[in-house]
């Protein structure tokens, strides 16, 4: 599992330390990958910074998308249960 945002590596390191997250955090400060995935939410962050809209993709080992969740309301995210249920299709 990898979490991707515009946060710089320092911020992600602090977040991992604070919350005890063990999965990979990747930084996309210039939003190049966020744009490649068409997930740019312009000026939606603090001080009108561009951010990613929340989205989750499950890829199989070949890199093919097997499950997508694009929320319609950014307070509503996939729950851990939904993610686990999606991954069960890969087993």
């Amino acid at each position, binding site marked *: *599992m*990898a*979490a*991707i*945002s*515009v*946060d710089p*590596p320092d*911020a*992600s*390191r602090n*977040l*991992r330390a604070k919350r005890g997250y063990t999965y*990979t955090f*990747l*930084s*996309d400060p210039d939003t190049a*990958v966020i744009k*490649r*995935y*068409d*997930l740019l*939410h*312009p000026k*939606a*962050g*603090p001080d009108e*910074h561009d*951010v*990613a*809209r*929340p*989205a*989750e*993709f*499950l*890829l*199989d*080992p*070949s*890199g*093919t*998308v*097997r*499950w*997508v969740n*694009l929320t*319609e*309301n*950014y*307070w*509503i*995210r996939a*729950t*851990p249960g939904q*993610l686990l249920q*999606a*991954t069960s299709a*890969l*087993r």
Partner: protein
Amino acid sequence: MATDGKPGWNWLLWAGFALSVIAFLSYFAFFVEFPLTRNFPWANLLLFAIAAALLAVGIRRTFRPPKSYRGKIFGPILAGLSALIFGFFVFAIFVAARHLPASAAAPRVGVKAPDFTLSDSDNRPVSLANLLTEPISGAAPKGVMLVFYRGYW
């Protein structure tokens, strides 16, 4: 209680107003942490309902004999402010949060996810190919979950 002719302190109005503020702030400060209370803000709506009940009883007793309570003027003001807070909450959670980009060109089921290389939290470059192939506790990964999030946590 107002038995000596002086209007009694109407704590219900202040409690109702304070609870409205708490109902608003606690979503962002606390309830947003848990999927159960974030995905639908029922805990906050419940707090708003209790606040409304306190304000309603508080206002009712300012206008009802025989006991006299303060709040004929500030009671409705506090109730109005509470209604504004509630309205702003509903707007923020149910209306404004739906203004998301369409993401029509986002990768769909069945297509190859575009490759990328980004820095991890230790400034090491990590590519999607790395994520898909590097063994996890000795075994090849069965897949990768990519989670895009807004950041600024």
